Structures are given as C-alpha cells and as structure tokens.
C-alpha cells in the first residue's frame, strides 16, 4: 500500500480528465450516463460542469487563509459578545469553534460560560502582571524570597515565574497543548488565556504556541481536515459528516496534488466506503501470512511449466517458451478473456454439499477471501510495475526527443496514459475490497460488469507500455484512445457505484471477518 503516495501525487486534475474523456465520448454507444449529470453541456461551454455523483464539494486552504478565517471569526463573535478578541478566542476554542453554541450559551448564562472557559469575571479591567510578594513560597519548587517574580491568574494559584514558564514549556513543547492549558494549581480548571501566555512565554515558544492554536482551529472543526501528505501545510474543507460515510466516499484533492479521503485521511479509496476499507486493511494485515504466496512474482506456465516472471503491469501473459497465452490472475487461457466469457473478476460461489462441511466451509471462505485479495494485491503490484516501465520508457523518450527533435508536448501522451493507468488501478484495487463485502443482489452483476470493463480497458492500455520504444510514436493515436477509454470506464464505474451507494441500494456483509 505504500505505493499509493507515488501515484496519487501528480494525477490529472478533474478538468483534464473531463477534457480527455470528452474526445472519446461521441463514438461510444453503450455510454448510458445522463448527459447532464456528466456535465457535458454542449449548449454552453462556459457553464461549470455539474458534479459527478462520486465527487464532493471541497475547498483547499493555505495556512494564511486558515489564520485569517480564524481571525475573522474571532472578530465577528467578539463584536457580538462585547468581549475582547483574546477572551473571545478562548471562548471559541473552549467550545471547539462552535460559534452558534457559544453565542447561545453566552447569552443564556454569561457568567457560567466565562467561568467554564477559565475567564470568570471581566478579563479587561485587570491585565495579567508579574508580582513580588513578601513571604511567598512557591508550591512547585519550594523556593521563597522577596525578590522572586511570581504570577497568578484570577483563580489565585500563585507560582514563581520560573515554574510557570517551565510548566508552559512542558505543556506546549512536550505535550503539544495550546488552547486548553490549565492553571498549574491543583484541581484548578482555569484556562491560561493568551494575554497571560504573552506575558509568560519566550519568543521562541510563542511561534510554536500560535502554530498549535491554529492547528486546533482545524482539528476542532468537523468540516476541516489537514492534508495528510508529508510536509503538506494545506487544510481541506468538506461538508461530508461522519454519519454519512456509509453513503458517500469523499475523495478530495489537495493543492499539493495528493488525493485523499476526507472521511478517514487515507489515500483515495473510491468506490469503497471508509468503514469497509478499515475492515479490509485490518483483515489483510491479519491474514498476510496466508496470503503471502499470492504476491510472489513468478508463476509457472500452465502448459509447459517453465517459470515466468511478471515484469510489466499487464495481466496478459505470453510464455516465452511455448507461446501459451494466459491470464496472470486466474491462470486461465487468455483467449477466453476479453470477450463475453471474461469472468476473471468474479468469484463463483461454490454451493452444495461441500459447503455443509465445516472444514470445507472455512476453506471456502479463505478461498473466497484469497480470490478478492489476489486481485486487490495484483492491481497494487501492477500499478508499481506500470510505473516502473513508464519511468524507463520516459527515459528513452527523452533520449528519442533529443536525437529526433520531437517536442516535449508530443511525448505527453505517455505521461497521461501512465497517470490514467495509476488512477484506474487504484480504483480497481478498491473495487475488490468493495466486492468482498458486497451482499449479492441484482445490482452486483452490474457492478461486476463495470469492474470487468474497467479491468479490460486497463489491461489494454497497460500492454501498450510493453511495446518497443521505436514503435511508440506510431501508436500515439491508439494510446490516446485507450487512455480516454480507461478514464471513461473509471468514471462510469465510480458514478454508478456512488449513485447506488447514496441511494442505499447496496448492502454489505460487514460481519464477515
């Protein structure tokens, strides 16, 4: 699964995908989507394409934007409540940035609200300050002396400045706390407000403190999430709620290029819903021992038994020795694939007496799992191999470019093809986890047909990369066609599945271990 990051980072934007698929749409008869839904409105090219069922609305924000949102919201609420911005910020953070709840609660019970946020009384009249107090002994370090700087908030828990500083340092630096640091006093729930913090913490710590405060703004908001890509500083806003996650798979696209699921922060896993993905990954981890043999990279030709190594992503294998053509996934004869007989993606449940025997049953359930796991793992593996081959190809193309004077733009079709392939394999991979938990009903076959069509399209494109380099330029049109077709099949599958998921037409056997 670690390959995901590679092939999620530089994919086509949605607009590019739409444009690409536009090309091949007209000459396709079995394209059944509602034209409006797909957003190809020929009347007015300026109208923003209507959204696909598998897409969700989202927005990407930079750290500066997050900061200014936060500031704006503080200012707005500050005006409503008549509280200074510092206090308002504490109140907002205290109620996890739920503006409406804060205003209601404040209007209803002002003192209680202030008290619970650690702000009791008016925080304006008496700004925080350091004091020297005769006869003071610090309860934390046991130091005393009239020269000792001390500090206390309005709760009266007084400690020496050094201890207060060290306490805040531990909280901010070691524990990553910011918005809800409590008074160090025993059992005291008062929150250290930002004015007191300004007085107490060093400059270097302030940066970290404000960074953490900004993080809580995103962490606390149900509709905001950090992009999980390493070193990415953007946050994404999306309105999909946790309770909707069985009906929608909210894939979002960060400005850094990363596609991820807003529901669970994992890499894009459409069409499978989050809970199912979680279950599946857990299962794969638990069963990895049993399933290990599958990911092996070599198999024997079913005809002549010579060892065959899979080095491209394509599943259409041809034995070097006897020229036997077969399917890598099921080891079946290839001629039976790619036609209406094609059923490599479908697991035929063996019924009858065999299943009655408990042992046979458990073997059957393992077999069933392995069927789906095999295909899931294969697409993951193939995506890597496809990428390898593409990178090699790209290198040669660059050489070709240099010697033949072909322009950069002329070799871009290879790049598009490679990216489409990665994206489609990612989707295919998750269709197998999806299918594993899917309870059979009249929609299952449509789903499997879509899966099969996408799979064929993918293998057809994948095998192009195994052609000799000098032929590639001549295959450009063919390659463009196959790329567009792949992308289109993916959209159809996702669209169909998302629609049915949203309408509650699927049922899943989630109790299946």
């Amino acid at each position, binding site marked *: 699964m670690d390959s995901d990051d590679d092939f999620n980072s530089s994919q086509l934007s949605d607009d590019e995908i739409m444009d690409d698929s536009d090309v091949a749409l007209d000459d396709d008869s079995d394209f059944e989507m509602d034209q409006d839904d797909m957003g190809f409105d020929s009347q007015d090219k300026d109208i923003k394409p209507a959204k696909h069922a598998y897409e969700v609305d989202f927005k990407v924000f930079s750290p500066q934007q997050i900061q200014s949102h936060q500031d704006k919201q503080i200012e707005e609420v500050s005006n409503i409540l008549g509280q200074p911005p510092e206090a308002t910020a504490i109140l907002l953070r205290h109620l996890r940035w739920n503006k409406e709840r804060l205003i209601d609660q404040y209007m209803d019970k002002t003192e209680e609200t202030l008290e619970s946020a650690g702000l009791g009384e008016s925080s304006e009249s008496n700004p925080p300050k350091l004091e020297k107090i005769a006869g003071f002994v610090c*309860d*934390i370090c*046991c130091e005393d002396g009239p020269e000792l700087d001390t500090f206390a908030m309005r709760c009266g*828990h007084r400690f020496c400045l050094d201890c207060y500083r060290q*306490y805040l340092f*531990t909280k901010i630096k070691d524990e990553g706390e910011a918005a809800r640091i409590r008074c160090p*006093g*025993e059992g*005291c729930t008062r929150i250290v407000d930002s004015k007191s913090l300004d007085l107490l913490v060093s400059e270097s710590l302030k940066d970290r403190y404000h960074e953490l405060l900004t993080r809580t703004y995103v962490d606390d908001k149900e509709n905001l999430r950090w992009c999980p890509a390493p070193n990415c500083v953007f946050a994404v806003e999306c309105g999909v709620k946790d309770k909707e996650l069985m009906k929608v798979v909210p894939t979002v696209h960060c400005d850094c290029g990363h596609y991820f699921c807003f529901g669970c922060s994992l890499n894009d896993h459409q069409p499978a819903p989050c809970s199912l993905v979680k279950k599946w990954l857990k299962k794969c981890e638990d069963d990895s021992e049993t399933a290990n043999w599958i990911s092996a990279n070599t198999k024997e030709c079913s005809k002549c038994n010579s060892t065959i190594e899979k080095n491209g992503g394509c599943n259409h294998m041809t034995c070097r020795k006897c020229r036997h053509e077969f399917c890598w996934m099921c080891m079946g004869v290839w001629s039976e694939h790619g036609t209406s007989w094609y059923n490599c993606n479908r697991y035929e449940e063996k019924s009858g007496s065999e299943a009655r025997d408990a042992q046979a049953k458990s073997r059957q359930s393992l077999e069933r799992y392995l069927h789906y796991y095999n295909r899931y793992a294969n697409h993951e593996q193939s995506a890597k191999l496809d990428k390898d081959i593409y990178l090699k190809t790209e290198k040669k193309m660059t050489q070709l470019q240099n010697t033949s004077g072909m322009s950069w733009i002329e070799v871009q079709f290879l790049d598009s093809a490679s990216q489409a392939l990665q994206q489609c394999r990612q989707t295919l991979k998750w269709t197998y986890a999806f299918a594993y938990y899917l309870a059979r009903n009249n929609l299952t076959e449509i789903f499997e047909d879509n899966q099969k069509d996408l799979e064929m399209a993918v293998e057809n494109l994948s095998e192009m990369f195994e052609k000799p380099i000098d032929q590639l330029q001549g295959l450009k049109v063919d390659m463009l066609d196959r790329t567009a077709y792949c992308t289109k099949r993916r959209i159809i599958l996702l669209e169909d599945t998302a629609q049915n998921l949203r309408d509650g037409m699927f049922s899943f056997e989630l109790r299946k271990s």
Partner: protein
Amino acid sequence: MALPKRIIKETERLMNEPVPGISAVPHEDNLRYFDVTIDGPSQSPYEGGLFKLELFLPDDYPMTPPKIRFLTKIYHPNIDRLGRICLDVLKSNWSPALQIRTILLSIQALLGAPNPDDPLANDVAQKWKEDQNAAIETARQWTQEHAKP
C-alpha cells in the same frame, strides 16, 4: 545532579509527618526512588492487606507526575497485571502542585472505591460489572494470598 529543593522538602515532610496507613522511604543510593507501602482501607476487600509499591520521580518532576506501580499482586479494575495504575491525577489531571503524599492518598482512596467504568484491567472490570460480589470475593482472596503483612 543535585536534588531539587522541592524533593528534599517533600521527603522531609514524608518522614516527619507520615500519613496514616502510608509509608514512603527513599533509597539511600537513589533519592528519587521510593519504597512505598499502603494499608488496604478498612471496609474494602483489601482490608488487612499491606501493599508494596515502587515510586520514581523522573528528571522533570514535578512538571511530569511520579511513576508508580504496585509490586504486590492485586485484584482491582483500575490496576493491571503489571501493577500499573489508572488514575486521572497520574495522567491528564496531574498538576505540579500535587505531591507524593497527595498521590499516595489518591491511590489509597482508589482501593476503597474501584471504578470499573474506567478500567485498566479489562477482564477484572468485566467481572466487577457482571458479578460484583464474586469480584469482591476474589479481591479479598488475593489480598489474603498476596498481601500478607
């Protein structure tokens, strides 16, 4: 490293004004390491037992709480097989103004009032909820077996 004034003061007070039913004695070669005993509270299944614990004050004490665990085997929903204790003041509710003596008093109170809703030892907590009488009986037996003074 010189021992901070705070630890010296605390140790002195523990020696001079001991808490009834609790003792804490620092090791001579490591003044941050204490041998602790707590008497089982009366009217609890731990009554009559003497429980040994170890207590260690980490370098950043009192900014971080002391590390404490039971050495005597004990059947309690908030104490696991390794003697680790689930107690809020040892975790999120730790305050640097708290002291060794207050923490030990909290542990003694925990023996008198087990809280199976915030368990550390899940199997024990389960028993405690399903059949409290049987669980208390087991705790009593364990006290007899393992916590003899």
